């Protein structure tokens, strides 16, 4: 497994909370998540966010696997979440 790499461009998922909320209709940063690659569980707010590319990438802070990718396209917002074993959004 590659080492988690962080640098000055690394943010917390909190930084994209507004985009997540617009997509999911609820605050996602306090939702529980599980990494499909390493099994780490934690609130979405603990994930690392990379926002300088064309879209947004959320990575696992333990194994750095990509958990969620979101990109706005002319035809709509594309969400790829195969790195996410589950999300639990509290009522």
């Amino acid at each position, binding site marked *: 497994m590659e080492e988690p790499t962080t640098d000055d461009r690394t*943010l917390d998922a*909190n*930084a994209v*909370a*507004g985009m997540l*909320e617009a997509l999911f209709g609820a605050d996602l*940063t306090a939702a529980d998540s599980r990494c499909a690659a390493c099994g780490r569980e934690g609130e979405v*707010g603990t994930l690392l966010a990379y926002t300088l590319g064309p879209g947004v990438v959320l990575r696992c802070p333990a194994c750095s696997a990509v958990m969620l990718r979101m990109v706005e396209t002319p035809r709509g917002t594309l969400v790829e979440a195969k790195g996410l074993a589950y999300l639990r959004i509290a009522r």
Partner: protein
Amino acid sequence: MATITAIRDETPRVRSYALGLPSWTPHRPGQHYDLRLTAADGYSVQRSYSIASGPEKEGEIEVTVERVMDGEVSPFLHDVAVVGDRIEVRGPIGGYFVWEPTLGGPLLLIAGGSGIVPLMAMIRHRAATASRIPTRLLYSSRAPDDIIYANELRDLAARADGLEVVHTLTRSQPAGWTGYARRIDDAMLAEVRRPLGDAPLVYICGPTPLVEGAANGLVRIGVPAQRIRTERFGPSGK
């Protein structure tokens, strides 16, 4: 749409903006608003700004903004915006980096530069609710002039209600300075944490290297990782 109702200088590079909100909802300290600017040609840019005020003031929030040299939103706010201007906002946003008295303590807050802003919302809310939860703020600034909310922090600490403020000045210190004068390190973290016991509830906000250094350092000195919440600014501030 929010309306700028007041602008206040905090430091040479930092200003606070009071925003009147027609559809105000009380926020949780630590939350942010997204501000969006749209040019006449439709080009639009959005940034997140932490709320500096507590939720006590109805219909209004305050954000504190550092002027980022190559930024797109903060130069507009600093150089162009005036009282009465309207700005598109969305919020309050975020449910992770928040603190309310019901979450308990003891509380260890660590700020670098304008990372103080969301922590100030927590400190102001703590004071407004007369909470006596033991709280220590470790605040890293470059120079005395860069300390945001310096007077208010001094006054709040003087209330002796369980809030203590510890400064470190990394680049220049005034004559007779007795506080820390270096970047945050493990020894400093251990000294500041000690009165709060082994597992304080920790909120760290600032530039990414400071946040990671402090979070890793706290884990090294035995603070459980689950007790630490972080908010990284990235390279250009927020």
